[in-house]
């Protein structure tokens, strides 16, 4: 969090209403997102209690474990969940496009992909756990479960993993996305409360957001008071209706909040790079689908050495790209870099479009641009720069001082003797340059898993999910 965000929070606190920290939306928002609000039984790691979910705000599905103490019912519940989620996920597999790749076979990429929206990060974590607890199950053998359950497990595992991938929008945590676009007048810790955060963004703060009687927790954990006074007696009574109704009172308010969050995000125009990141999501999603179709085993309990390193590399790459793209898409994000002197913006005061360097054959066109700026520039001469106004273009800082910065354009101004029209900004145009650039070379290859070196424990015994996984009782 930068001083810019801190200032926004101060302002929010003072004015009693959240302040924007983004001018565009930085996540993809599906036309039919699947809102998913899971509840779990307190004191258990992944014992489901209920879930409200659906793509239609007017027709939520409520799935309840009508006797939470009964383990078989939990799997029945998982099967029900699969009955809703799998058709949704698979509905995106049919329409695909063919993608050509350099030195690799072309592949089929889904035109659209599923998007699961959960209330908060603990919701994401629970989704992952749910995946972990179901993906190793077998529909045959000693402790059989319905066919769909292990498949659901693999998808949930995949989605839960992907949620940790910077810039991915397959799974959104409402509080996180809202927090990325608005600064509330409370601490980031308190922002984890969906009702509270939405309160700040819409009507202003109020203590009722923290009153479980008015706004029940958005899950997966339920309110202890509710457990003691409502749920426990209901379970004692053994009445399925009563348990169902009790749980409905706990998820329904959150259901409304979730769609409110979706609307708020939808109201923002999408940043230019969002499509590109969603494209990667679609690719990843299609990849997973193929993986499953090929009958690959369920994801192992934990990553092997090579997998871990590969994931880390991808995630770091994605994080870096995500940061740069957000800054290029959004002046308010770029402002954070201007504040620290890694970027500057201002009016073009003067240009030398036909400036050249070198002599004879090595003579190169290097148009000069002088920018008048109020920003503190903390970049040494020679720093290579990029600019949101002309994304293809590369520039280099020549000198900076007295509110005037000279840069020379080094690439993306055309091949000719004179710069291509529009390549060099006009005097008076507002431009922004930054040392933040999105040119990363790929990371070098990793060994094959079976070639894992002795320093990392040598080749792993390839993983076969055993009955142990399948029969692990689910308490």
């Amino acid at each position: 969090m930068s001083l810019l965000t801190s200032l926004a929070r101060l302002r929010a606190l003072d004015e009693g209403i959240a302040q924007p920290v983004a001018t565009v939306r930085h996540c993809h928002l599906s036309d039919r997102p699947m809102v998913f609000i899971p509840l779990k039984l307190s004191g258990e790691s992944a014992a489901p209690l209920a879930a409200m979910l659906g793509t239609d705000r007017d027709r939520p599905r409520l799935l309840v474990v009508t006797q939470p103490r009964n383990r078989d019912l939990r799997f029945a519940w998982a099967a029900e969940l699969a009955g809703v989620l799998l058709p949704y996920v698979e509905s995106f597999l049919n329409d695909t496009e063919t993608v050509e790749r350099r030195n690799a076979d072309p592949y089929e990429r889904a035109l659209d992909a599923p998007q699961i929206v959960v209330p908060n990060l603990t919701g994401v974590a629970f989704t992952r756990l749910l995946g972990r607890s179901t993906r190793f199950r077998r529909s045959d053998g000693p402790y059989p479960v319905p066919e769909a359950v292990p498949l659901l497990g693999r998808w949930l595992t995949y989605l839960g993993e992907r949620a940790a991938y910077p810039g991915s929008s397959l799974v959104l945590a409402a509080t996180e996305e809202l927090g990325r676009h608005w600064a509330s007048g409370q601490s980031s810790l308190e922002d984890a409360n969906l009702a509270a955060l939405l309160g700040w963004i819409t009507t202003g703060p109020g203590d009722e957001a923290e009153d479980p009687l008015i706004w029940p927790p958005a899950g997966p954990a339920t309110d202890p008071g509710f457990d003691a006074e409502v749920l426990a007696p209901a379970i004692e009574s053994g009445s399925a209706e009563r348990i169902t109704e009790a749980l409905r009172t706990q998820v329904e308010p959150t259901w409304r909040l979730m769609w409110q969050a979706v609307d708020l995000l939808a109201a923002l125009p999408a940043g230019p790079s969002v499509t590109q990141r969603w494209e990667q999501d679609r690719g990843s999603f299609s990849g997973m689908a193929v993986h499953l179709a090929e009958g690959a085993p369920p994801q192992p309990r934990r990553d092997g050495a090579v997998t871990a390193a590969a994931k880390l590399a991808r995630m770091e790459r994605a994080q870096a790209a995500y940061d740069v793209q957000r800054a290029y898409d959004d002046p308010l994000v770029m402002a954070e870099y201007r504040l620290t002197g890694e970027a500057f913006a201002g009016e073009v005061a003067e240009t030398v479009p036909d400036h050249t360097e070198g002599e004879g054959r090595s003579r190169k066109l290097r148009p000069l641009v002088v920018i008048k700026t109020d920003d503190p520039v903390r970049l040494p001469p020679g720093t290579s720069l990029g600019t949101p106004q002309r994304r293809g273009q590369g520039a280099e800082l020549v000198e900076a001082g007295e509110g005037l910065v000279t840069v020379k354009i080094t690439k993306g101004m055309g091949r000719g003797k004179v710069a291509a029209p529009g390549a060099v900004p006009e005097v008076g145009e507002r431009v922004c340059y930054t040392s933040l650039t999105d040119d990363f070379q790929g990371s070098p290859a990793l060994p094959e898993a079976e070639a894992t070196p002795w320093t990392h424990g040598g080749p792993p015994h390839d993983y076969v999910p055993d009955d142990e996984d399948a029969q692990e009782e689910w308490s």
Partner: protein
Amino acid sequence: MSGLKREGDHVHRLEALRGATPQQPHDARAIAALAANPGCTRRALMDGAGIDKDAAARHLGFPAPFGQSPFAITRGNVFEALVKADGCAELLRMLRELLGLPVAEVSYHDVENVGAHLRHAHTRALIDRAASEGRDAGTLYDHPLLSMEIAGHTAYLEPDVVAFQLGGRFHIVEIKSFAVIDGQADPSAVAAAARQAAVYVLALRTLLEELGHDPAKVSHDVVLVCPENFANRPVATLVDVRRQLAVLRRQLTRMTTLDRLLEGLPDDLSFDLRPDDDGRPTRPVAELADALHRTTARYAPDCLSACDLCFFCRDEARQEGASDLLGRQVRDELGGVASVAEALGLADGTRDPAEGQEEIARLLRNAERLRRECLT
């Protein structure tokens, strides 16, 4: 030494602070929580005086947001019972697998078999016998009762189990019902367990020292027992609590140096809740609130998960318009600027920077300029 006398009258002063309110005994969790926010004078004084912060908060109309679900509680008890069932059969299995406990080592003592009032003495006796390697030194001690001096008062501590004879060393066994899934557990839950276990380790070491044994006989590796994955089957993991021990020692020494804080206090200051016969506080709320306001708190949002008084202090911070509300990081970023109004004044330029505020003022104005530029 003169320390003794000072020690004496500051204990006296603390009792004055507490007044008629019965001393709230510290348990392991409370002691472990001393490190949660050591910078907070208000909390230090209330803990030192042994005031029931939870009761105070409720009386003040700011009940703490904590509560434990009956399901969680039941689950906890059921799991502990499972681990200890049939002479700790499960525990023995794990100790054999994890620490190579010899098969012959199965002897089990349930300290609770003696009357409650004798548990501590009995624990002492059993531990002494074990440590002096006497014949039939026990292996498992169930429901032992240890003690520790906190700010002049004795706190009684109840570890789940103490295991002996793992290479002649004592191990604290901590049974928790949060799950270990594929070898990992919720780091904050583990941390809490480790802090609590550290209290037991220290208490047991102190006991051994008093009995003239080598305190190092108590291992700094505690045995954490949790349900594995999604099954009920317990799994044991060794947790190294040396760091937690260091922190704990630090905090306990701080407790004895409360004088510094006490000296600053007005003589008439008291946190007394004036409980009636059935323990209900009768002291006028405004009066109690005022008394608390006269001590400085160091509110941070982290308190919301650690301190019973958090809502009271947050409310106070709101009244004062303190930037602490927004979290330690923001507060730190703002350098010396403590109040929201001040910070915004500097940002808008409606307020001139005081001595030493020039830089933060410049930064804030710059930030404000950028925000306006981008939002209009």
